[in-house]
């Protein structure tokens, strides 16, 4: 060993040589930033002018108006949309995730399930809401459909990944007892992913609560519709009232999420 260390001369370049690919990537990113800014016509003057408009707009917010009677029913509807879509979406995501996990299923099955998850994830909930409104008409049902799709995509993807990371040894031992596939899930898989699953569901519920205030903009129920029409009437005081209520709702959701996590862990 001693002779080898003294006879072989090495330098920094032997181990940390810069690669041509990395340099090309840096240049490419920089070039795209310049191109994108140029084609979109970004300029400092427009930002300055915008700030002035924004200030006047914000001034219209005060004092916020909470007196309109639409706020509470709208908020309750948003809450119901969020709750139902989280519940249905999560329930549907569980089997999809098991089917998508490559360590549980043959490649053909998991690829198909992954395709379904990718489909659910590829559109923003508002885009799905637009389609759902066309399909089932205005109202909360469209919102529930939109957010259910989003939940299947999100929880399905993360849960599938969590299942793929579990210890094979523990599964092997449960299989060796002669347990059926569903019993292996119950005793081998669920204990290993339960903690993370609760985290995903809590996060998705929180996310659905925020998105449920959005889908109303395209007519899919909830407080968003009220918000949008207030904007169109230039009733900024009412807009401010709604926004403050939404913030309150989301914060309550945050607190509830912490509580639920603590109870179930």
């Amino acid at each position, binding site marked *: 060993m001693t002779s080898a260390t003294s006879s072989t001369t090495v330098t920094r370049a032997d181990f940390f040589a810069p690669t041509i690919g990395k340099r090309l990537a840096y240049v490419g990113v920089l070039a795209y930033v310049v191109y994108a800014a140029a084609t979109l016509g970004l300029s400092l003057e427009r930002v300055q002018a915008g700030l002035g408009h924004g200030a006047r707009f914000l001034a219209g917010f005060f004092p916020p108006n909470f007196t309109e009677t639409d706020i509470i029913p709208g908020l309750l509807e948003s809450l119901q949309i969020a709750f139902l879509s989280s519940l249905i979406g999560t329930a549907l995501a569980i089997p999809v995730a098991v089917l998508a996990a490559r360590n549980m299923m043959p490649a053909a099955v998991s690829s198909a399930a992954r395709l379904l998850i990718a489909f659910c994830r590829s559109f923003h909930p508002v885009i799905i809401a637009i389609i759902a409104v066309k399909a089932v008409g205005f109202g909360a049902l469209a919102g529930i459909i939109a957010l259910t799709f989003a939940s299947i995509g999100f929880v399905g993807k993360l849960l599938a990944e969590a299942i793929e990371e579990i210890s094979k*040894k523990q599964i092997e031992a449960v299989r*060796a007892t*002669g347990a059926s596939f569903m019993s292996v899930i119950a*005793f*081998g898989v669920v204990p290993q992913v339960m903690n993370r699953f609760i985290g995903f569901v809590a996060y998705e519920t929180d996310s659905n609560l925020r998105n449920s205030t959005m889908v109303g903009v395209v007519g899919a129920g909830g407080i968003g519709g009220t918000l949008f029409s207030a904007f169109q009437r230039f009733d900024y005081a009412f807009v401010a009232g709604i926004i403050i209520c939404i913030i309150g709702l989301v914060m309550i959701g945050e607190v509830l999420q912490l509580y639920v996590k603590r109870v179930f862990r």
Partner: protein
Amino acid sequence: MSTLSIKHLVKEYVPGKPVLKDISLDIEGRGITAIIGPSGTGKSTLIRCVNRLIDPTAGEIWFEGKDLAKLAGQPLREARRRIGMVFQEYNLVERLTVMENVLSGRLGYMGAWAAWRRKFSDEDIQKAFSLLQRVGLADFANRRADELSGGQRQRVGIARAVMQSPGLLLADEPTSSLDPKTSVEIMEIMRDLAADNNIPVMINIHQVELGKRYAERIIGMSGGLVVYDGAPDGLDGEVLRKIYGGQDWLAT
């Protein structure tokens, strides 16, 4: 009649490169049969072929009147529940309690819906608790498996295997992750529980001395073949050289 009869077993992970080349073995009614041999010679593969955690390429494995090599689905699961297995790294479900781990030995005998709701019979619970008392872990019944030491985990692993009411116990290097003193304790528990239940044990082991001390029969494997099959007394330097190759390591 033998409990387990392996006939011309072959396993190839890569076609044309067999890990097990034509293994034939009979395991009789009771006692420990220790399989020794260098790493990579197919000891674990052999054990795992018996309960079909690995599918053999060719050959027959007769156990309780059935050729395990040809079973699949429900009949395979029914055969598996009669074969207990102890693992090198214990393979407990870490986030379940000790009691749940032992009771998981009954999963082959109950439906999945009952398993989800932990609807074990009082009989099973009683048996699991008695087994935990037997291996000295009754006080740990409600602890999570990942709170236990290596030796304690392996005792739970053995209790889980015996909980299956097996007709055969397999052990894949059950002492390789344990210190020498704990290793002896684990071997004694396995020998005693196997004797209590009147079942044979087939065990892979690296520590030759430990194998000689507890086994009634030693099987030496090398290069995917059985090169020694006989009493522990017959394991002299000549035989060990044949099994492990070389001789420098045998000095003194």
